[in-house]
């Protein structure tokens, strides 16, 4: 198994605050990797550096052996990294179907000019995009509401639609930012089954951020724990569960 993503001493400072401090980890292809830690530990910041929203102050991020530094978010998406957002950022007024079509945008082959003239190629392209998008919606059990506006979908479905949209980019690495946030236990259970399926059936490499430790324990092969921007533990779930520093970090929070 080859390494898909590698963070080397990745550090970012905002003013005097070091949000992520010399973070190191490696995600092998085909794994379900968890990134956990208490609120404000720097998980989402790490995501934002991987996807090019922020540029690290120092250190490196390599995807398939190439550095992603200095690239814009859309270029990084083009390399094969897709993400969801912690606070859902769907295209609210567009239908679920259209959301997923935009997710597939990277695969477009027609030019803007041919779209403006509505040449047969542009027409055909949209038709194939619709078909692919419907397949993905089907996988995510959203097909029945394909024509509903994203903002009118129930909360849990919005979360799933975000994953569907990210999957439509056909990513090699899928970043999920607290996909279970705000869900009830039953919904969370479903979602976790779905994520597991993505890995098992589609061999999707996934990096999952979760605030709630229990959620990730069940499904991730490997977990990195962040606290105050620094990595405090890494390893398989059993090891993490018993790591005194992890317990300290989480207990410290609940105190």
């Amino acid at each position: 198994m080859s390494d898909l993503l590698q963070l080397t001493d990745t550090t970012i400072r905002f003013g005097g605050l070091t949000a992520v401090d010399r973070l190191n980890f490696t995600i092998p292809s085909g794994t379900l990797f968890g990134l956990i830690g208490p609120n404000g530990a720097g998980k989402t910041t790490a995501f934002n550096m991987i996807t090019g929203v922020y540029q690290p102050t120092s250190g490196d991020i390599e995807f398939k052996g190439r550095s992603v530094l200095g690239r814009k978010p859309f270029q990084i998406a083009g390399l094969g990294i897709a993400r969801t957002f912690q606070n859902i950022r769907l295209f609210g007024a567009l239908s679920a179907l259209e959301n997923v079509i935009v997710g597939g945008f990277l695969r477009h082959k027609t030019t803007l000019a041919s779209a403006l003239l509505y040449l047969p190629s542009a027409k055909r392209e949209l038709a194939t995009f619709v078909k692919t998008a419907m397949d993905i919606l089907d996988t995510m059990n959203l097909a029945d509401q394909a024509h509903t506006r994203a903002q009118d979908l129930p909360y849990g479905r919005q979360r799933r639609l975000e994953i569907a949209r990210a999957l439509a980019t056909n990513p090699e690495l899928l970043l999920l930012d607290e996909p279970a946030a705000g869900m009830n236990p039953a919904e969370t259970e479903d979602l976790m089954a779905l994520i597991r399926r993505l890995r098992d059936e589609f061999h999707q490499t996934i990096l999952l951020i979760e605030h709630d430790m229990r959620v990730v324990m069940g499904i991730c092969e490997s977990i990195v724990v962040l606290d105050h921007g620094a990595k405090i533990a890494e390893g398989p779930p059993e090891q993490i569960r018993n790591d005194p520093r992890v317990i300290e970090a989480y207990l410290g929070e609940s105190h």
Partner: protein
Amino acid sequence: MSYYIQQLIVGLQVGAIYALLALGYTMVYGVLRLINFAHGEVYMVGAFFTLFISRWIHAPEDPALWKLFTMLFGAMMVCAILGATIEQVAYRPLRKSPRIASLITAIGVSLLLQNLAILVFPINPPPAVATEVIPFQRSIQVGDITLDIGKMAIFAVAIGMMILLWWIVMKTKMGRGMRAASHDFDAAALMGVDVNKVVRFTFIVGSALAGAAAMLNSTFLGTPLRVDYGLLPGVKAFTAAVLGGIGNIPGAALGGMLMGLAETSVSAAHLSSYRDAVAFIILVLVLLLRPSGLLGSSKVEKV
């Protein structure tokens, strides 16, 4: 040499007017994140009411210092009421809508006031307050520099207003509310700040400052009153607010002064037909190069 000093003084006078107007923009933006397009029109209405009041109290025929103050406070009062009304009728219903909706409404209010003014105000021929209060146009000579007493009053009043504003913002309960709301509007509401009151107060204070600026400009600088009286000063003052860092009160004062100087420099360099373009060029440049302005702090969008 004296030519340049004279120009410098003119620049600062114009700048003081812009500064007073810019304060209104910056305060409203600070609290509501709204560009109050109608602010320039409030200023225009203030100028017209200065004229009406000066006629009602017979300031032109029988000048007295108290009449000038009556004009000043009258204009401030009218503008304050107008500002509060605009906020109540047009902006408050949209508090929870997207910001663009409020912006369009603001443009609508600005257009409405301008076009109502065309119908209602005597604009043909354009009257001027200054020509009617000539007794206040006396001047003194310092070396070879002529100082207009009336024009010096602009400084005095403008600086007085700014000190008053500083006191209001820093020392009063309302001022504390304003600072809280501009820091985080929703949190301020949750913490028991009566945000509706604070917003109304912000509009009242900002509009009153516009009224003061209108009275000073129309009385001592003597521009003829037309319905687009507030259009360019409005945009220039907004530019000043952006230049200083929008939402930042000292920044607005600084930006206003700089705008006045920039404009007068262009006129002094005999490019006066481009005087109005300067404001827009500065505006576009500041927005592109340093949107947070001179004294503002940049904010990062949270993902």
